[in-house]
């Protein structure tokens, strides 16, 4: 039994899903699940030691023979894809249901299958031309999924920003792949580490894939797109789609030789994204934007690991590189799991209240206990707190960095700052998610919508439960996943293939299990103890204030205020303030908005400048024939001059 048939089956089911999805929702769900499950099993088969699977077609597509390949790296991401795709499909059944969105729900199903299909192809094709095709299709599906709710203007503009940003990235990939083809004389891809001349191409790939991965400062499209998309789409975009960028970087840094500066740059980008991304997240008031920025942070964490690995490659295959890289790979899965979980949670809050502003929510735990629980779990995981999965992967990355530091090679100069920034990012992540969870679920409802919230249905809770289970499992038994990671590391760099589990991984798992048990026991015990002694309910003692109102609670803006102040230089918050005046102050306002700095402060002015050029050029088309003929003459003269210049023999 090879992965081939399973993949074929997955392909067929998903392809039929594209067609029937428009009509039959149940059949579609069945097909999608079947497809994802079989894809998942194929990937696991490879990860658990089956040899790489490779297939070349007899027919040619676009003038090239189809060449599929499923090796460790592809399989790792394929698992993530199937996980996210399946969960999202189930979640969407209620969340983006037929009767709430009669026109866009069918489209949504078709595009969903198309998205899974194209991403699967991105992961498996091994031919530059077909890779580009699959990549573009996947970007396009993403666009149409983000803009499912086309009637809303802000959705459309967010989608447009995503579309053009991803096209900008694709342009770099055009350059990358055609240069590759021009240099190697063919579109076929595969390991070509020995052709050292190809090393500079890494920079093209880094930018091209980086836009999709959304590391700072190429993340401009990410916050608005993830915030405005339907939540199951946000989940797959953030959990899976941006990982395609990581896949590209990992894949081609593994197949092609990399310039010696690559490691430094990547680790630097990673650290920057981690710190700034989470700083932006902490300052947000829109909880989906917060989640989006936290994705930027996690991409940063992953890139720190990848960068450390690249450094290790250029420093004589140092061992610490493997640990960091393993951590990064594991974090790809972990982030996929807990970020999808969080977006699902956010989705059900949105579904119940219709608002994304935390300052309008509060006290939801009473009505949405399940969602609250899952959200807290996700928060713990994303804040890399033991005993959950987030900590495991970051722990591995840390170990790599520490070893790099203790090795005292030049790499330490990258490792030490990276470790410190990672620590700060971790603390900020903890703060952000403490804030998010508390603002949404704790305290008193700040508005009516929050009071009348309701728990989401089984179809939405199920996927959350599944993902939560994944988070807990990886957290409690990391050792189980080591062989997988080791396999991938091996297929990334054959030199690293022999790699036994770092001993403490088992201990860590044991400690985590113990911790989990103790935590539960202690909580239960204290709860019972509190009840055993007398337990009274009373109004919050608000410093003796008689009638505390919901409006008096700490808001997300004030919660983030301190850090927003520290990072003011990059956050550039826009404040609107009217202080209370006079003996009987009428109204006092304090609004704070955190713009997307790179977009507003850098891309904005540049595009304005370009538009000015365009307007001035368009003035030349003023309708006066005389000038049109003058242009012809001018062209004549210019070309003549050009020829004369070139004509000098």
């Amino acid at each position, binding site marked *: 039994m090879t992965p081939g048939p399973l993949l074929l089956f997955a392909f067929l089911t998903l392809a039929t899903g594209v067609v029937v999805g428009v009509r039959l929702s149940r059949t579609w769900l069945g097909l999608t699940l079947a497809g994802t499950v079989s894809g998942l099993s194929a990937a696991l088969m490879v990860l658990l030691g089956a040899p790489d699977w490779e297939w070349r077609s007899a027919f040619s597509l676009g003038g090239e023979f189809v060449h599929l390949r499923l090796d460790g790296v592809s399989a790792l991401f394929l698992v993530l894809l199937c996980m996210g795709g399946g969960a999202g499909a189930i979640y969407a059944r209620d969340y983006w249901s037929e009767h709430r969105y009669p026109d866009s729900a069918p489209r949504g199903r078709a595009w969903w299958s198309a998205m899974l299909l194209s991403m699967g192809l991105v992961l498996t094709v091994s031919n530059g031309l077909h890779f580009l095709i699959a990549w573009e299709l996947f970007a396009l599906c993403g666009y149409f999924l983000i803009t499912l709710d086309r009637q809303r203007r802000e959705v459309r503009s967010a989608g447009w920003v995503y579309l053009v940003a991803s096209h900008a990235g694709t342009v770099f990939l055009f350059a990358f792949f055609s240069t590759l083809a021009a240099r190697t004389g063919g579109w076929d891809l595969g390991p070509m580490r020995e052709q050292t001349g190809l090393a500079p191409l890494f920079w093209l790939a880094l930018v091209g894939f980086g836009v999709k991965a959304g590391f700072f400062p190429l993340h401009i499209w990410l916050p608005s797109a993830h915030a405005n998309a339907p939540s199951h789409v946000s989940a797959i975009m953030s959990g899976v789609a941006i990982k395609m960028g990581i896949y590209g970087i990992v894949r081609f840094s593994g197949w092609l030789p990399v310039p010696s500066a690559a490691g430094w740059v990547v680790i630097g980008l990673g650290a920057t994204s981690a710190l700034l991304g989470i700083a932006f997240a902490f300052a947000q008031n829109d909880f989906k934007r917060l989640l989006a920025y936290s994705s930027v942070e996690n991409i940063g964490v992953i890139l720190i690991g990848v960068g450390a690995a690249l450094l290790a490659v250029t420093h004589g295959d140092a061992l610490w590189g493997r640990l960091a890289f393993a951590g990064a790979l594991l974090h790809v899965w972990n982030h996929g799991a807990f970020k999808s979980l969080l977006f699902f949670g956010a989705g059900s809050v949105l579904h119940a209240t219709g608002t994304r502003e935390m300052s309008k929510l*509060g*006290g939801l*735990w009473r009505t949405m206990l399940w969602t609250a629980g899952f959200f*807290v779990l996700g928060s713990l995981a994303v804040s890399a*707190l*033991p005993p959950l999965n987030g*900590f495991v992967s970051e*722990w591995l990355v*840390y*170990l790599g960095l*520490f*070893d790099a530091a*203790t090795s*005292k090679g030049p790499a330490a100069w990258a490792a*030490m700052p990276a470790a*410190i920034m990672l*620590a*700060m990012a*971790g*603390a900020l992540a*903890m*703060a952000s998610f*403490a*804030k998010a969870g*508390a603002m949404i679920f*704790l*305290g*008193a409802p700040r508005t009516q919508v929050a009071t009348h919230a309701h728990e989401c249905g089984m179809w939405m809770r199920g996927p959350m439960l599944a993902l939560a289970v994944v988070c807990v499992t990886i957290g409690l038994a990391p050792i189980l996943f080591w062989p997988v990671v080791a396999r991938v590391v091996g297929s990334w760099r054959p030199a690293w293939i022999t790699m036994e589990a770092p*001993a*403490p991984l088992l201990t*860590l798992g044991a*400690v985590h299990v113990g*911790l989990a048990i*103790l*935590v539960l026991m*202690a*909580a239960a*015990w*204290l*709860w019972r*103890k*509190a009840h055993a*002694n*007398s*337990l*009274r*309910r*009373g*109004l*919050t*003692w*608000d*410093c003796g204030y008689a009638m*505390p109102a919901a409006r*008096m*609670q*700490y808001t997300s803006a004030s*919660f983030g205020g*301190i*850090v927003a102040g520290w990072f003011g230089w990059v956050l550039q918050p826009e404040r609107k303030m009217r202080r209370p005046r006079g003996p009987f102050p009428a109204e006092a306002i304090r609004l704070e908005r955190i713009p997307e700095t790179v977009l507003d402060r850098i891309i904005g002015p540049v595009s304005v400048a370009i538009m000015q050029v365009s307007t001035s050029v368009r003035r030349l088309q003023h309708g006066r024939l005389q000038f049109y003929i003058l242009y012809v003459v001018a062209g004549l003269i210019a070309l003549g001059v050009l020829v004369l210049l070139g004509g000098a023999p």
Partner: protein
Amino acid sequence: MNLILDLVLRLAVWMLLAPLLPGIINKVKARVAGRRGPPVLQLYYDLAKLWRKGVVLSTLASPGFVAGPAVAWVALTGAAMLMPLGPAGSILSFRGDVLLLIYLLALARFCTAWAAMETGSAFEGMGAAREVSYAVLAEAAIIAAVLSLSVQTGSVSLVTMLSPSAGAGAVLLAAGLFTVLLAENCRVPFDDPNTHLELTMIHEVMVLDHSGPPLAAILHGASVKLLLFALLLVQAVLPTGKSSPLVAAGALVAGVLVVTVSVGLVESFLARLAFRRVPLLLTTAFLFCLFALLVAWKGGAE
């Protein structure tokens, strides 16, 4: 078998000795102020009383309000279990346990902050915000300190890291870690543990609405944390590695006492900082640790 014994003994030590420190600090402060002050064992009495007392729960609070302190206490005690006790070593030590320790502290912080936000009171919100925000700088400082230790000793597990040959950076490290200790345990000049002006507080204001056993858990956890940091500081600085067990143990106890007393002295001679100055001080602490790291980098070359 003796693993269990070891565990029990350690637990006992930690749980029994930890509450001593705040008592000592208060005694020192009282003496300096020329008062008699509360007995050194005051905290034990308080804990015992609180443990028997009933609980008042805010109408808004969820079960998390009680679970938070419990989890935090477990996390802190777990961290304490990872912390080696001089010659006795630690009960289980593995590569990277130091990171686990740091993140357990973070877990504890998350839970206290969470529990604080439960009541929806503006004051607790304020306290939690301050706690998590200042933690960012504190974490940076701690990681820098840990890095310097591990660069110096070429290891990533506490037992080996914490028995250094007195590195040149020991002084810097001491200064940095001491400041972090003050910040993390909400002592003056960062916080005033026994004022009643909530607006000026971090930790106290977070636990404002807690009562009974949960409050007991929080207070005890805090004392454990204090002891933890004191031990970290002492073992990071004192070159107890080579010396005989008895000497080492003595040095350890003495060191902890010194730290505690100096905390008390600081509290009696310094005023609490204005909040906008706090980041400055923390950054200074971070820089101390950073320099310690650089010194370790240079010095540890041989």
